[in-house]
């Protein structure tokens, strides 16, 4: 890369000092703006074919309310249909059906064959496309897409929210609070509140593209929530967003320094992660590029291991010493313990509480974004759906539930999942895959091979990284957060609750399709 100063725009901050001295650069708006897909042919559920019989009369553009047909000013011909926006056969019931509107019969509607090949049981094609649409428009997706549940046959996908027949008349959507309090202890540390009950999971520099990481941090700032460094070190470019960036302390201790601890509002100890519970991390040599190696203070091109587990911790007492260490380094940081979901996950949570953690973050076995052995992803540790209620109930029984914040993650995809997790007993959730899907992930799973993600998301390859820009990633995520919040508020509104906090532990508002649901609720 050329180092000539002339190639660097003066307006772009370059060094850490630049970022700190240019707070304006870090200002991000929460405003929803269109963030169209970065590919020419976005995948949608349906395809619209325009045959050569088209006379470019423009009736289709007049009819379609979804923006499938356009003809820019000054152009004679129609643009090829943006058929990913099409809502399908249901449109025939409306006045806007282009196929009927076309005087030449030149338009035909069909299912998109590529749509059938994307997705899986947990992230169905509908969920992927719905998330892309939320990221583009900032609004909840249209009803032709199933945007609440997947098709895994268990857990969240079989749980349903029980809505009362009508919400209270005096409840207004704009009065509903989605705030989440992170510090419930009676200590001198800040009572941090975030505006939405979710924050971003750890993704390390080295595994994920800088553009995506910065997009996530900027979005966290815009929405007054948090994102997490993962364990790859603290990028200087994240400093302007430092009040919204969690520093992760993981077993490799990459990038853990006094200043990165002191900068953070929350310090997260990663004991284990849902993608590979009980296994260490492994950054393949290909991804250890010069900047990554510099950040991790390692040799370029070597594979980097994050061992499992912390080699200094064999007990809750050791865990407490660990937390005490950070407590002394930073007087303001909240302490979070990220753990996976073993048989005794409830005991682990209680241990974290007694060690002094403000947040216990349960990472269930089906989530995760990073590359992991398939055998681990499928088989090790319990799904988060079981862990949340076990932990919640155990903390209630111990009389300490209101002194610790329980965060759930590992396979939460939609606001409906969030609501179910909170009703089962979590205070809030962490999201990861949903954010990557918003910036164009199709879950092909080839994150780790060769140069990394072919779609430029989880890669440090300079060429592939160019497939996303910071601004685009930011806007997609800002939009997604807006759509999620709208949907979550709608769920709370229909439930007649005025805050997310009021939903916590309300298992009486849930039912399970595989059960008779005849237990008398005792926690209403």
């Amino acid at each position, binding site marked *: 890369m050329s180092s000539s100063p002339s190639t660097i725009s003066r307006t772009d901050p370059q060094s850490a000092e630049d970022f700190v001295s240019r707070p304006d650069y870090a200002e991000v708006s929460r405003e929803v703006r269109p963030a169209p897909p970065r*590919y020419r*042919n976005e*995948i949608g559920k349906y395809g619209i074919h325009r045959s050569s019989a088209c006379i470019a009369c423009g009736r289709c553009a007049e009819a379609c309310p979804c923006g499938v047909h356009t003809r820019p000013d000054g152009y004679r011909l129609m643009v090829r249909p943006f058929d990913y926006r099409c809502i399908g056969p249901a449109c025939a019931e409306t006045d806007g059906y282009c196929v009927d509107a076309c005087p030449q019969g030149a338009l035909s509607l069909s299912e998109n*064959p590529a749509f*059938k*090949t994307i997705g*899986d*049981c947990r992230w169905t094609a509908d969920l992927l496309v719905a998330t892309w649409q939320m990221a583009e428009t900032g609004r909840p997706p249209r009803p032709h897409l199933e945007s609440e549940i997947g098709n895994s*046959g*268990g857990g969240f996908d*079989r749980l349903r929210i029980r809505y009362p027949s009508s919400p209270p008349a005096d409840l207004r959507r704009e009065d509903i609070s989605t705030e989440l309090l992170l510090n419930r202890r009676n200590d001198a540390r800040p009572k941090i509140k975030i505006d939405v009950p979710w924050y971003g999971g750890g993704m390390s520099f080295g595994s994920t593209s800088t553009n995506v990481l910065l997009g996530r941090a900027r979005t966290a700032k815009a929405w007054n929530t948090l994102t997490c460094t993962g364990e790859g070190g603290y990028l200087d470019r994240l400093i302007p967003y430092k009040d919204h960036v969690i520093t992760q302390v993981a077993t490799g201790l990459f990038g853990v320094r006094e200043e990165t601890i002191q900068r953070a509002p929350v310090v997260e100890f990663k*004991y*284990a992660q849902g993608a590979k519970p*009980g*296994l*260490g991390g492994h950054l393949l040599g290909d991804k250890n590029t010069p900047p990554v190696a510099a950040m991790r203070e390692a040799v370029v091109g070597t594979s980097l*291991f994050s*061992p*499992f*587990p*912390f080699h200094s*911790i*064999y007990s809750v007492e050791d865990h407490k010493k660990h937390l005490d260490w950070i407590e002394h380094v930073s007087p303001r940081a909240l302490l979070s313990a990220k753990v*996976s979901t*073993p048989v005794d996950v409830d005991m*682990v949570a209680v241990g974290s509480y007694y060690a002094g953690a403000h947040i216990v973050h349960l990472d269930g076995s*089906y989530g*995760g*974004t990073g590359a992991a*052995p*398939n*055998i*681990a992803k*499928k*088989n*090790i*540790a*319990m799904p988060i*759906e*079981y862990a949340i*209620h*076990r932990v919640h109930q155990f903390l209630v029984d111990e009389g300490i539930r209101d002194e610790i914040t329980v965060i759930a993650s*590992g*396979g939460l995809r939609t606001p409906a999942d969030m609501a179910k997790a909170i009703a089962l007993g979590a205070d809030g959730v962490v999201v990861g895959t949903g954010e990557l899907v918003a910036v164009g992930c*199709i879950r*092909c799973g*080839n*994150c*780790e*091979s060769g140069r990394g993600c*072919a779609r430029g998301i989880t890669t440090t390859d300079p060429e*592939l990284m160019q497939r996303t820009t910071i601004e685009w990633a930011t806007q997609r995520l800002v939009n997604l957060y807006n759509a999620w919040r709208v949907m979550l508020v709608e769920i709370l509104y229909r439930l007649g609750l005025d805050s997310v906090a009021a939903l916590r532990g309300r298992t009486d508002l*849930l*039912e399970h*399709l*595989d*059960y*008779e*649901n005849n*237990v008398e609720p005792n926690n209403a």
Partner: protein
Amino acid sequence: MPAKYHIHTEPAPPRVRPVGKLGIVDWREDCSSCHNCVKRDCVYGFYRDEADTLRDETGYLDYIYQCKGCLNCVQDCTKGILTRVVNPEYQRLGDAHYTPDIILSTWFQAESGRIPVSGAGYGGPFSGAGFDGMWTDMSEIVRPTRDGIHGREYISTSVDVGRKLAHLRFHDGELGVLPPPLIQSPLPVMFEAIPRHWQRGKVVTSICRAAAEIGLFSIVRSQDVPVELSVEQENIIPWLETAGAANNGALSAAMVMVGDGENVMAVQAALKDENADRIVGIRVPAGPEVKDRVLELTRQDAEVIHLVFGRNGRELGAARPRHMRQVLREVHTALVEDGTRDLVTLSASGGIALAEHMAKAVVCGADLVAIDVPLVLALECRLCGECQRDGVCPIALEDIEPRYATRRVINLLGAWHQQLVELLGAMGIREVRRLRGETGRCMFFEDLERETFGRLFGKRKEPDRAACAFATKP
């Protein structure tokens, strides 16, 4: 520190064109010849190769068979004429138990010797029947050993096969009993006898050689033992289909197998008379009465009991056949309650398709398992069934080169070994012997459902799995 058990793997690329899952199709007539797909979008270079082979048709069409499915070419095509499809040949692979995904995963492991790895979380069904309704445990802080980076470098995967003593007896300060013979298998897996229709060319020889190279044992019907095998004989477990077959030749086998029958203990005694150092395994079909039979045989001094399940890992001869998971737990528990579990070695075969099945069968109470179909899958078999109909094998199994076939099998077991170590490492268990029957380090779907959702939502309805297309995975 003892030497580590290590399986050396080296790449063994496919001999025949592999079947891929995804492919790209297009309609050439509207192509604008921009070559975006070829020059820019395929980061894996597959499409470029395809364009080359159009002029020079050698090799197979990678863009159909090896597409990684990133959709870049589909989504960036100037005219939008590309689309992605699931390869119908892929969908036809295998059967309900050995699914296309399992077959592709086995091929990958046999080719590379590596653990299948992917990103983006787990995309499969929430749970399923049999072993898919089990999750293994992990520990936040416990490592199996303090050695190495992850503490799993010295995990032992070795098991003892044979009868063990309940206690020692001493006489005048000297050991007063003779310990029965034991053999050690460095992995809790044996190679099961391969059905006759797959015994083509050098298949049996190659599989036996693979077992010998990595210290495992292969069960072979006594009349099927290839004539060219001599050095490897110690690793062959001849399966004597008739009692008289015991004398056929100078097999120096450390262990033999016989079928269960009314006078099987007499057969065992005769075999022991002939050579007291030889272990005798009894093959018991896993039917509904298997628990009582195992108890009876154990009390009568059986050394190794080999439970034979159906090809899908289920009971034989039952109206509603239970999965190996339930049967093994029942048998193991009965032996524990009888106080005889440690005396006998229990192995199980049938339906073991993935490395995780090996670990889960051990959790359910087996000492070790035996595999057959995965060995043939490693040799690129597609389970098309042509050989059972006397048809032509599409991969010409009869022509397979023995060295290559041995390499593929070793690679597969190398990957399985690594995966077993991963599971043990996560559990904080440092040897697989301690995993046997250790259901406390495992979570069962029914238990988790009852303890969590049962408390909240009452009685679980009869499963209505048909309601969910994805959840019908066997």
